[in-house]
């Protein structure tokens, strides 16, 4: 599909492609891959670099790490491959998977990662063991 010449009426800055998805009530014109890359590639590149530099910074520092680093590494494993719903999988990987309320909240805030086992981390462990 040639999308390079398709622009929304009167606004050459904002290209819109022909691929349409029908959602209740309106037609959604999704962007092409090329358009998504044009709009978001530099931002994604910058975020990958920040992540790489963060991991280097952690490695250069002295002392022990806590569970968050391991949780982040597991979460990052969902970026590999071509399966969809990566954002959802990353969030699930960092989430408390339990279902019962805790006894008391003692003033602690959330830290961004669950300290215990999560289903995806357990699956990984199993598949690694002989």
């Amino acid at each position: 599909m040639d999308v390079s010449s398709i622009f929304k009426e009167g606004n050459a800055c904002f290209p819109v492609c022909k691929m349409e998805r029908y959602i209740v009530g309106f037609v959604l014109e999704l962007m092409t891959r090329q358009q998504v890359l044009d709009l978001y590639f530099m931002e994604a590149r910058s975020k990958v670099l920040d992540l790489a530099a963060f991991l280097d910074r952690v490695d250069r520092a002295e002392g022990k790490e806590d569970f968050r680093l391991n949780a982040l590494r597991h979460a990052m494993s969902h970026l590999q491959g071509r399966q969809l719903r990566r954002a959802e999988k990353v969030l699930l990987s960092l989430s408390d998977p339990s279902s019962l309320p805790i006894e008391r909240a003692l003033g602690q805030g959330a830290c961004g990662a669950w300290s215990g086992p999560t289903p995806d981390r357990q699956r990984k462990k199993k598949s690694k063991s002989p």
Partner: protein
Amino acid sequence: MRYIEPHGHMVSRTTDDYHDMATAGCQVVCEPAFWAGFDRNSAAGFYDYFSQLTEQEPKRAARYGIQHYSWICLNPKESENLELAEEVLSIIPEFLAKPRVLGVGEIGLNKNSRNELKVLEKHVDIAAKHDQLILVHTPHLEDKLKGTRLILDLLRNDSRISPERVIIDHVEEHTVKMVLNRGFWAGMTLYPESKCTSARAIDILDLFGTDRIWMNSACDWGHSVPLAVPRTALEMKKRGYSRDVIDKMIYRNPIEFLSQCPKFKVPEE
């Protein structure tokens, strides 16, 4: 552009923010009661805060041509002290009767504790008894998934609550589907770090459509952006959303939900 900021903690913001929001097209701001960043020690402290929300803040917003509404409750972060919670719950009905109060919110869970659940249940009971809309805060980060499930179960077990009169806020990719599938409204909070970015919020619209969903900045005393809604509208435009769909997302959808409260007045064109 015209828009509604359906969730902003304006008591934490400066008049510059009101000015910027009005300039960007903000017509209405709705302010849920929330945590001050420290635990309040007395019911009198809450009384003063609720008075600020219902009396002072509407006047401040009006100077910029913005209508101000509020939601009243005790924040889940302040639910561990059940004795104080009971005292605060007892003053809530007085404020629910005020002319610019839309309902009970933002109630919900924070760390998913037993006492938080107890207080949530009491809030839901007050909302049902006083026929109020409900705005729900879902927990942060790693606690969100579990908290959202607990909240949805609690709400569904109360037959007096109609899901279309409840908005579950701060949804992300792992919680939006369960909220919408059960008939509730969903709110996406546009935060620079800890909740949805503009790009991810629009991804959610790509996947789930634009019915029963709104976007808010939830701007407060923390790292947040009061103009997050109009900025996301601009990004929707870049991504090919029509002017009409953008208007639905940032203006007509909030009106559709909020108009279920007879006190809410649609801004005059």
